[in-house]
């Protein structure tokens, strides 16, 4: 039994706890508890009214039993009764029970709320605090409804005791977190902000948490807190360690309050007022200086408290990202910590440096620590520290050190903890791709990756290496040679077999001249792995074999024999069996020319965001990879071949890459965009091979004939529909939007007139004008053929949310268009509120009996409703700063797609609909624009800044709007324009 038992001793409780502790087994404990529960239950139900003390004791025992992990289903009522006791200890136990075992029973909540109400109005500070603690602990919506109005009053009332104020502030914070809609600061705002000036440090400490949270949500209303926070901080930082008496912690003045002040300042941009800013910079410098002073105490608490403030100050410096001097000093300080004997400090220094690495001012300074970080990766005994080191290496990586970092990460992978291997693999793959200067290095790196950590190499990684090899012809021979060598290893990972199979199937011919890697040697090598592989890999290998037959006719008989064997042609797996049958047939029926066409080398993959990056992003959450990095990765990568292609194509390809069906990803059949001119006609043939071959050999052969006029209608029809299908088979449902419709949409972001669409049959011209939130669009449908179009109908639909955002009215159009004629259609558009998608225009008509069905996006984009706004430089920057919340800003950094000609840029920006402001940006190279988007519901002010970098051929585009979705959308639209 403990010697100290202050206040009331509840002897019965102590005895019970001792009993439990003396139980020799779990069973004995349960037995003892059940006995006690039965006893308490009978007491509560008994005829004899219990006095307050007994009630308190039993409630406390129930609480103890609950905390042991047992369920408690009674006693709540008795606990609520205790709340209204006028004895403090009974009340206290009652509140504790409620706080720990809160029940959503609304009946009870009402009773609890009544008791709380009484205590709040008791004017007894101890009771008031108890009641406030209970609200803060439970924080339910019902409590917010009952007390959210009352607590701000208590908080700011002049006669409230300090301790009550403290509890009220945090109680209100808790209610705000659960029910922000119920906590209305309104008239109290300024008095709450001024609590930062309170004489009582405890009140400031509690109130600042509330103010920080409220500032995050309503930065404008609370912005006066910045200067108050700076002056408070300055007073603390410059005070001697004894000045703050009990708020000094191990010679550090008010560490908790200092950290909270620095955190509050991170809700805002740097102070505009020069004097305030100067004072703040002084504080930050003092904090950095103090870190260099000898410690005032050897206790770890002293250094922890001091460094807690230092790290918070560094966070603020990084947040501002505008003081190069401070950033570099911060970096040097962290560099010292990297070799500190305290593991905690090393961990935090690595973590903090990660964010410093992304600032242009300190990136170089961070890089100087590379050796220390690599060393940490090798020698740290704690995996969480090693993980931080790996993160930092990833963050500090750039072209200059990529090879070194990738090599170190690869060698670390050999011994890395299983928990972080997959992430490491992704990071290595991304760095290798992002900073590849020569592709042989890239291929080596990825193959090493597969060799070292094959199990952790996800599909995205090996898909990616294949895409890149296919898109870069300068690396194909090297890739074939390297995979061939890698496959020599007696035990190689299945992922290696996949990459090997695919690459040799495509490019094995490039190394076939060497007798050591003659076609037959290649085949035997691949086939020696066949039996050890899973079904999808075997399927891939079968495709490689048929490609071999095309590449090397001399392997034909060997391969046919393999395909003909029972283990292939009668394989129990239907996919393998089908492939074996089809490939065997294909190899024996088709002529060499046909084979060569069907099994042509894969066309380049469309450019798209690296799927690996997307995966890492998903894995680490949005915070892990910044938008800039993503963009940079995409542009700097430059590994993808294909030129400009529509976003939709890549969508198709991306969805395909993850299809489990091997037939889809192996030959990449459906990744061949059916419309793009670059796609060879073999693309559509291959589709037919798979949809018809094996079912109908005749049809299959017929489909191998050179394409006829059917290729015309491919535009209008889905790629899967073969020309042999009768016209009536074409669906009457509106076709999905054309893959290139996004590109077509982008063409009209900065202009209002032009040709929207054209194919062999039809041309659609467009003319449009916009005023305020209204628009009128004229569409001209031209029949390019000499035959009439019949049952010509058009429908405009607003999919999904758009329905409530745009009001679109169309006049019906003539159902008949003579050959060579043109008809006109008027569309009226009203913008109700801001929107993202474009309306869809579906056009159906019959041409020579065949139904034509196509869907386009109408080029109605949010910027069409811009009203230009002229303003002076000063006004512009003022408004720019007002829109400083992170979600109000959208930014993209991207590579120029067109020549960076100033006049063209100006014309485009004017076409956008905003006012192009001259002499605003200090840098004459930059463009700034302002405008107001007019919608029926509201007006959305938007500011734009475009910073071209002619040297790097890059742009940085920044948009700020009073509405976050608008900034995002404008940024997306515009990034495609330059």
């Amino acid at each position, binding site marked *: 039994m*403990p010697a*100290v038992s*202050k*206040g*009331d001793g509840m*002897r*019965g409780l*102590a*005895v*019970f*706890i001792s009993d439990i502790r003396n*139980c020799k087994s*779990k069973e004995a404990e349960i037995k003892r508890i059940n006995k006690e529960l039965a006893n308490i239950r009978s007491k509560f139900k008994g005829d004899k009214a219990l006095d307050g003390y007994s009630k308190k*004791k039993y409630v406390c025992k129930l*609480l*103890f039993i609950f*905390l042991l*992990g047992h*369920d408690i289903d009674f006693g709540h009522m008795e606990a609520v009764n205790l709340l209204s006791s006028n*004895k*403090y200890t009974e009340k*206290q136990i009652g509140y*504790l029970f409620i*706080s720990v075992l809160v029940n959503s029973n609304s009946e009870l909540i009402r009773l609890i709320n009544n008791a709380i109400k009484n205590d709040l109005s008791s004017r007894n500070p*101890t009771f008031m*605090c108890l009641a*406030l603690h209970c609200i803060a602990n439970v924080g339910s919506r019902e409590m917010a409804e009952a007390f959210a109005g009352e607590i701000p009053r208590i908080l700011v009332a002049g006669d409230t005791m300090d*301790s009550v104020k*403290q509890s009220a502030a*945090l109680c209100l*914070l808790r209610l*705000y977190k659960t029910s922000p809609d119920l906590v209305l600061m309104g008239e109290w705002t300024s008095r709450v902000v001024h609590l930062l000036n309170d004489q009582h440090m*405890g009140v400031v*400490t*509690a109130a600042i948490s509330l103010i920080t*949270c409220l500032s*995050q*949500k309503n930065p404008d209303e609370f912005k006066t807190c910045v200067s108050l926070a700076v002056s408070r901080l300055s007073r603390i930082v410059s005070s001697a360690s004894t000045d703050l008496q*009990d708020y000094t*912690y191990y010679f550090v003045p008010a560490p*908790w309050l200092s950290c909270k002040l620095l955190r509050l300042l*991170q809700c805002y941009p740097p102070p505009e007022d020069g004097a305030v800013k100067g004072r703040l910079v002084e504080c930050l410098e003092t904090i950095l200086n103090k870190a260099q002073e000898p410690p005032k105490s050897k206790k770890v*608490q002293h250094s*922890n*408290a001091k*460094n*807690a403030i230092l*790290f*918070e100050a560094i*966070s603020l410096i990084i947040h501002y990202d505008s003081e190069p001097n401070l950033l570099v000093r911060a970096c040097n300080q962290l560099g010292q910590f990297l070799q500190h004997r305290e*593991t*905690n400090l090393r*961990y*935090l220094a690595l973590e903090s440096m990660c*964010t410093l690495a992304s600032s242009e001012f300190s990136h170089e300074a961070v890089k100087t620590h590379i050796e220390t970080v690599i060393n940490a990766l090798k020698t740290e*005994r*704690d995996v*969480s520290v090693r993980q931080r080191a790996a993160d930092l290496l990833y963050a500090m990586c750039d072209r200059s050190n990529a090879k070194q970092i990738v090599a170190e990460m690869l060698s670390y992978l050999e011994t890395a903890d299983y928990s972080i291997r997959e992430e490491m693999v992704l990071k290595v793959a991304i760095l290798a791709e992002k900073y590849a200067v020569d592709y042989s290095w890239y291929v080596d790196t990825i193959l090493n990756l597969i060799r070292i950590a094959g199990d952790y190499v996800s599909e995205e990684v090996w898909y990616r290496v294949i895409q890149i090899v296919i898109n870069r012809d300068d690396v194909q021979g090297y890739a074939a040679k390297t995979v061939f060598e890698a496959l020599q290893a007696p035990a190689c990972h299945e992922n290696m077999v996949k990459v090997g199979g695919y690459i040799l199937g495509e490019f094995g011919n490039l190394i076939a001249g060497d007798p050591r890697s003659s076609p037959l040697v290649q085949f035997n090598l691949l086939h020696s792995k066949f039996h050890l592989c899973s079904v999808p890999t075997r399927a891939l290998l079968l495709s490689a074999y048929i490609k071999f037959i095309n590449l090397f006719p001399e392997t034909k008989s060997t391969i046919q024999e393999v395909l003909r064997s029972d283990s292939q042609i009668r394989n129990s797996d239907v996919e393998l069996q089908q492939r074996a049958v089809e490939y065997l047939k294909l190899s024996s029926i088709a002529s060499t020319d046909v084979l060569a066409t069907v099994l042509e080398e894969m066309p380049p993959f469309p450019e798209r965001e690296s799927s690996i990056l997307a995966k890492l992003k998903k894995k680490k*959450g949005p*915070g892990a990879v910044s938008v800039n990095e993503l963009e940079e990765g995409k542009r700097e990568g430059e590994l993808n071949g294909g030129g400009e292609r529509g976003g939709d194509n890549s969508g198709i390809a991306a969805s395909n890459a993850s299809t489990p069906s091997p037939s889809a990803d192996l030959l990449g059949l459906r990744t061949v965009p059916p419309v793009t001119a670059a796609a060879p006609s073999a693309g559509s043939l291959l589709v037919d091979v798979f949809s018809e071959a094996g079912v109908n050999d005749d049809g299959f052969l017929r489909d191998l004939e050179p394409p006829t006029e059917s290729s015309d209608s491919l535009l209008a029809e889905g790629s899967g529909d073969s020309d042999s299908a009768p016209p009536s088979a074409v669906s009457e449902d509106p076709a999905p939007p054309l893959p290139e419709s996004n590109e077509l949409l982008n063409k009209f972001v900065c202009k209002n007139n032009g040709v929207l669409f054209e194919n062999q049959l039809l041309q659609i011209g467009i003319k449009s004008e916009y005023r305020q939130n209204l628009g009128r669009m004229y569409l001209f449908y031209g029949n390019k053929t000499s035959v009439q179009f019949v049952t010509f109908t058009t429908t405009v639909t607003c999919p999904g949310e758009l329905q409530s955002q745009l009001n679109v009215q169309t006049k019906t159009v003539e159902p008949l268009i003579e050959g060579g004629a043109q008809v006109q259609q008027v569309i009226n558009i009203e913008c109700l509120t801001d929107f993202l998608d474009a309306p869809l225009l579906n056009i159906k008509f019959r041409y020579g009996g065949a139904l034509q069905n196509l869907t386009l996006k109408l080029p109605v984009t949010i910027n069409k409703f811009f009203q230009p706004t002229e303003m002076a430089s000063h006004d512009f920057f003022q408004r720019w700063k007002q829109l400083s919340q992170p979600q109000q800003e959208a930014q993209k950094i991207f590579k120029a797609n067109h020549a960076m000609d100033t006049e063209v840029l100006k014309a485009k920006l004017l076409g956008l609909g905003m006012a192009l402001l001259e002499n605003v940006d200090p840098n004459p190279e930059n463009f700034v624009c302002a405008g107001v988007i007019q919608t029926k519901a509201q007006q959305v002010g938007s500011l734009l800044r475009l910073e071209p970098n002619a040297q790097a051929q890059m742009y940085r585009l920044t948009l700020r709007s009073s509405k976050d979705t608008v900034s995002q959308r404008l940024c997306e639209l515009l990034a495609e324009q330059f």
Partner: protein
Amino acid sequence: MKGHDSSDLARERDASVHVTGLLTSAFTAISHKAHARGNECNINFKMQFMLLFSRQGKLRLQKWYVPLSDVQKKKISREVIQMVLARKPKMCSFLEWRDLKIVYKRYASLYFCCAVEDQENELITLEIIHRYVELLDKYFGSVCELDIIFNFEKAYYILDEFILGGEAQETSKKNVLKAIEQADMLQEEAETPRSVLEEIGLT
């Protein structure tokens, strides 16, 4: 003290399975991963919970600052206790767990462990733990695990005076203890003396 303590509390409390998915979603809802620069505008619960447990994994005190069901709480405590107990002495005091940070420190036989939001300052959290230990120590006079077991309600009261809703309310040791002592005074005044017999009688 012997015998029972060694049994794995976590296992004893195994009341539930298959809640992982549920938990994960609960947690993403609570603390949405913040922007890398700490610019987060979501409302975050800074400290989400505090656990005190013994070297044998016995939970001695649990304080939750986020609304979670009992099943979730049990699952989380089990997971966190297991993870922290597996750490070796010289390792760092911070752990990433789900999208939270676990900050822990061992004092004699007891582990003190806080889960804070990802952007929170780790070192200051470590000192929150230390200040709480100091408060307990001062109040009980050289505190030991037994004090917390037998006077668990006091441990809760002290914690409530120090931290409220997951935020430091009063960091002055003197002020916290003054508040607790005042409450003790109140109850001593209010208590009517009881005979020992009555105490033991029908507990």
